[in-house]
């Protein structure tokens, strides 16, 4: 997204003041957000407590956040919009479900194999669409989602439209985590993924991927095979998306072909834009906002999704840096106000 980091255009044709960032990532940039993220997660967990409804909300929010984080590398960093994430999440979910119902393998194996299969599926779809970008890629991945959902409904091993249910409990080498422990683990997984993605964004790998969005020819000429890097980015995203599916399926205890709808994928595109594309934590914040608006506010009822979609348009038009982007600006302004001696030329 090129609106990432750019401020609204000035009304008159005056060159904007130069913007700057530290040339190399500082420890604060790479790790500072983790502290805030963990604090927020602990706050949420305390708020949730043992309330079953709130627990479901939190798991849903974690699922949304993971799908949005899965889209973060290909969509926000590399700039290619794929809408196949419903299919990837389904792969993750069905992997857990099938390992549980059809095999005697430990359940964590399902958590592992789902992301791998989803990554392979993403590479195959990516190879088939390697010449496509933009509108064409959106259209093909939409058609893929529909075809895949159709396949899940009609295949015999997936249980058809009824899907699969009643799974074994998750065991991790003999340890059977309780429901509360799993809830905490969901929040922890989101924090860890966001934290690692943020470090990845700042790493040399992240620089190459972010350059690929704007100037693929320069990246290619500098020695990175751009189509392959695209596939790697897609595969990583699909893996994280499958993790979301595994989490939701494990916690809800059932999965159907339409568990991960296209609506969810649309919302997942909007989450980083709402929260802020500058860091993966923006996608997490966006997921929390979307869950709050669409599921937790009874006064909004069905119009919560409408509010989200209109809100996204508004954010794109007037506040392209999202909520976190503005909080960050606010923080910098505050710091500058507190240290007046450093002058205005930061």
């Amino acid at each position, binding site marked *: 997204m090129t609106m990432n980091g750019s401020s609204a255009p000035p009304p008159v044709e005056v060159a904007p003041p130069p913007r700057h960032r530290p040339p190399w990532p500082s420890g604060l940039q790479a790790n500072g957000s983790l502290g805030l993220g963990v604090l927020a997660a602990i706050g949420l967990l305390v708020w949730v407590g043992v309330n079953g409804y709130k627990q479901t909300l939190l798991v849903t929010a974690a699922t949304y956040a993971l799908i949005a984080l899965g889209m973060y590398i290909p969509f926000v960093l590399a700039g290619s919009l794929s809408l196949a994430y419903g299919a990837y999440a389904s792969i993750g979910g069905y992997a857990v479900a099938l390992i549980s119902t059809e095999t005697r393998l430990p359940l964590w194996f399902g958590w592992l194999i789902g992301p791998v299969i989803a990554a392979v599926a993403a590479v195959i779809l990516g190879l088939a669409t390697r010449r496509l970008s933009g509108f064409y890629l959106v259209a093909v991945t939409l058609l893929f989602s529909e075809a895949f959902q159709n396949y899940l409904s009609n295949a015999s091993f997936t249980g058809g439209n009824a899907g699969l249910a009643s799974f074994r409990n998750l065991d991790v080498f003999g340890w059977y985590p309780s429901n509360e422990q799993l809830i905490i683990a969901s929040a922890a997984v989101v924090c860890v993924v966001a934290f690692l993605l943020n470090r990845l964004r700042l*790493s040399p790998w992240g620089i*190459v991927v972010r350059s690929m969005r704007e100037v693929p020819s320069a990246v290619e000429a500098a020695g990175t095979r751009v189509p392959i890097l695209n596939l790697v980015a897609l595969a990583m995203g699909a893996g994280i998306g499958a993790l979301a599916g595994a989490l939701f399926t494990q916690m809800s205890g059932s999965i159907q072909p339409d568990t991960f709808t296209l609506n969810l994928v649309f919302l997942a595109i909007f989450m980083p834009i709402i929260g802020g594309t500058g860091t993966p934590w923006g996608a997490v914040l966006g997921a929390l906002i979307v869950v709050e608006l669409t599921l937790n506010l009874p006064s909004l009822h069905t119009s919560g999704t409408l509010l989200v979609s209109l809100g996204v348009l508004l954010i794109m038009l007037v506040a392209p840096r999202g909520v976190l982007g503005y909080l960050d600006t606010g923080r910098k302004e505050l710091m500058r106000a507190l240290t007046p001696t450093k002058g205005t030329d930061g």
Partner: protein
Amino acid sequence: MADQPLLLEGSGLKKRYGGVVALSDVSIRLAPGEILGLVGPNGAGKTTLVDCISGTQSANSGVLTLKGARLSGPASRRAKLGLARTFQYPQLAQDLTVGENLLLGRVAMQHGSWWRMILQSIRGTFWVGRSSDATVVEAIAEELQITRLDRLAGDLTLGEQRLLEVGRALGQDPVVLLLDEPFAGSDANGVAGIIDVIRTVQRRGHGIILVDHNVDLVSSLVDRIMLLDRGHVVFDGDPAQCIASPEMQRVYFGAAALEADADFETRPDDEVLRHVP
């Protein structure tokens, strides 16, 4: 220089777009430590030739070798063999800082194959911060007098962007450096800086191919000049001879001008204007 093995050698290069022939049977050679100037009017095929050498576009036919090794396939593979280039329209990630753009040239080759991409992503996730590459990049920035690595590349002037592109290419430690109009839009300081870099690369025994409209400037810098006209090489040799050659007169001013005024000044006034993008 004649008895030295050639760095870069190409022959029979052809490129056509539909019915238009952009390159017609072009041969090119470059010795170690040599600076080759590539001149010609708009549409002569200069950038197409650079693209076909670097792999940004693929030639329809022809053979290219770099130090005896066959140059073929995508640009990334050729980069690994030692080619680096800049672009006529600077290709910089506008949202990234100057430092990050410089670092791209240094690290892109470490992401050469799919398993190295995965390896690098894991490495990048667990080891964030200053690397040895950052030190190298800072040395390059100092050499080119690029200051303020914390600015966003999109905020630079055109001249600064060209300098930054040269810096990014240097990060690749190239054997052959292809510079596509590096002076256009640069001020006197920028031009001097780029000329310094060209001399340094030359002293290391590497080769440079320099594309520009400005025949005077190019001929003062290069060891040899190649004049392109509508996809054909019409002159290949000594810069001073090239300026005086009838081919030069014909290509730049047309046959009529050549007949009308044999002593025509070789540098038209609008040459300066052409450098304004």
